[in-house]
């Protein structure tokens, strides 16, 4: 097995693993699965970002305490 074959296998594993891992992370963060219809048309678009904002706010409050 040469270098190109190894690169192809590693890339394939990374892509599949990366997509699966990001899906699990999103799920754990409580975000919805995005169907790819676009954030502009998506009523949940702002809540994806909003959730992060709120978390940051909470973190700040805890820091103050």
């Amino acid at each position, binding site marked *: *097995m*040469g270098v*190109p*074959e190894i690169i*192809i296998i590693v890339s*394939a594993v990374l*892509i*599949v693993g*990366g*997509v*699966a891992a*990001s899906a699990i992370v999103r799920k754990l963060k409580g975000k*919805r*699965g*995005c*169907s*790819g*219809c*676009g*954030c*502009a*048309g*998506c*009523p*949940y*678009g*702002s*809540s994806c*970002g*909003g959730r992060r*904002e709120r978390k940051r706010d909470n973190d700040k409050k805890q820091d103050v305490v």
Partner: protein
Amino acid sequence: MKKFALAGNPNSGKTTLFNSLTGSTAHVGNWPGVTVDKREGIYKKLKEPVAIIDLPGIYSLSPYTPEEVISRNYILDEKPDCVVNIVDATNLERNLYLTTQLLEIDVPVIVALNMIDEVQKAGDKIDAQKLEQKIGVPVVAISALKGDGIDQLMKRAYECSKVGRNARTVLEGGALSHLIRDCRIALEGAGVENALFHAVKLVEQDEIETKQHPQAAETVQKFKETFDDETFGSDFEAIVADSRYKYISQNYSNALIRSGKSGKEKLTRSDKADRILTHRIWGIPIFLVILFAVFHLTFSEDLFYLGSMGALGKDWVSLQGMWGEGVFGSAEGIASPGVILFNLLDCITSSISGAISSAMNNGGVAQWATGLVVDGVLGGLFSVLSFLPQILLLFMFFSLLEDSGYMARVAFILDRLFRRFGLSGRAFMPMIMGFGCSVPAMANTRTLADENERLATIRVIPFFSCGAKLPILTAIAGGIAQMTGTGNADIITYSMYLLGIIVAICAVLLMRSTTMRGEVSPFIMELPSYRIPQAHSLVMLLWDKMKHFIKKAFTIILASTILIWFVSHFSFSWEYLSDEKMNESILAGIGKLMQPLFTPVGFGSQLGEWGWVFVVAAITGLIAKENVIATFGTLATCITGTFVADETLGGVDSVAQMISATGIGVPALIAFIAFNMLTIPCFAAVATARAEMPSKKKFNYTLLFWVASSYIVSSMIYLIGQWWWTVFIWAGLWAAAITVVVLYNKGKINFRIKKNKITDKRS
């Protein structure tokens, strides 16, 4: 950070202002009810950054639908630093009705007179200063679309937010003012915030308020028993509404100076266009013609049927002998804009595949690795990406129709038809959104007040073929056109879209006459004026769609093609299989196991050794619908080599070749499209349906409904197409089903178990 909330009537331009302030690309549309959830953004041009919250449109602070509740609760509970009340200046009186209610809350309010450019264009004038003096809060004339007056609006809103404001009401001195005052004192004594607002709502006998403050509600009820108005009797809600409108008319309306043209002269272009487009007889046929024109321009390989009419020479091919031969058309006809873009992208992707394949072969890379990259990954990925131009073009046409204000008219003309099937015309808007994506469409059903109507609409939204299903329709329609030798893929695609609509209507009829019976809510919708769609918002929408499509293609679809290639080239004993031996692969094994289940729908056991391809494609489509064609694309190049001599075929051509080579018939292909179109949608849509459903039980029934509908409809298509006489059997079955429904509705059949009798027997 300070929070400014944008509140106003539906379609008054809140989201346009929000986009303008925050640089967002939130979807705007020329119809009421586009926004169903609040959005947040940041405005950075003031001394400090300010959070802007775009709220769903509301006509009043007495909510009827879930998205109206969001707006009311936000203003009352989240206590924004300033409420920017967007008022449609072209419809001043009605819009100021909400303003009079906002004034009753202890929150700084600023009025933004939006669409002032349209008022000026009509020759009218609004004296903003005079209006400001009368209302008692700042009034700024703006045009959210053109960006006029926005900076001034924000500066004044910022100043307002620093001062604060005490609530006041325009109902002072009216017949119910004493009662309002008594309620206010009682509520203030109980420590209720925004006592004046709650007092007025209590007097209006608002359902939420009555439940929250039962003691004060009792006082109102007692007073009501002794009260009798000449016009409205003791209908306090009507008295309050009338008082507000009278106040607006007497105090605010004179700020509007009309140009003085007579009613006939004032007949706008919108009114004239509506005489034709919303005609009670021609309205629906005109809509169907417009819809067909959209599909023809997107999918037809024979533009205006010039080829079929013999207007082109027999050997005519565009760019003959050059790169991109046939891109603009061939003897079959001139290609439509959608097909030209599709052909161009197909040429580019085929060239890339060819170049990579040559480079890998010349570099001595192992055959399996070349197969994985070229046939597996690129074959699958490019067959999906090729459809991107057609998807964008279709979205563009739909967006143009929506932004122009035509779609709102369609909802209006379909109301009469929909009403017969148990839905109101309002349900049409989320359905039309379903052509883009089921996720926002399902969320948009929040604008429907009736729970059963909302549930029925959510269930049928996936039947309106979304952008992700478009590659399935187009590729299979292309395959059918190739098999039958016709160039009319557009007619097949259009017919499949119509099939989705018809099945949706039949399903709604069935649901609304059995398990989801109820009154159809009245449909009142303000028809927006026709407007020229804005190029900027259209480009932003298409850019957003393209970005997400490409992102999806290079993540989930790319990963899927790798997995599909892997399981289709390895056996259960982990042995690598060449293309010819794919029938022994893991994927083939799983597909063959499930094949008998799909025999009644035409792509099961009857297809022989390669039939499993259709089964696995349908299953992978449950993750994302684009996967159906990605699976075909990945498998096609490998399979085609075993059937046909021309192994150089790539992309969609190889898919069409593979479809022909499996021996599947036209009825089974149409059944395959129908199955994929009507069955359980993608994961994201399923998750949204779960979130929007009132209970898990109803969600489970919904899943069952999708499986049953797809299976029944596709088997009907296949069996009738294959053996025409089965139409009588189906007719008989449907007649029996309808009879059962009618008898059930008349109470002559009861499916419920009589619990009492069972209890009696036990005892």
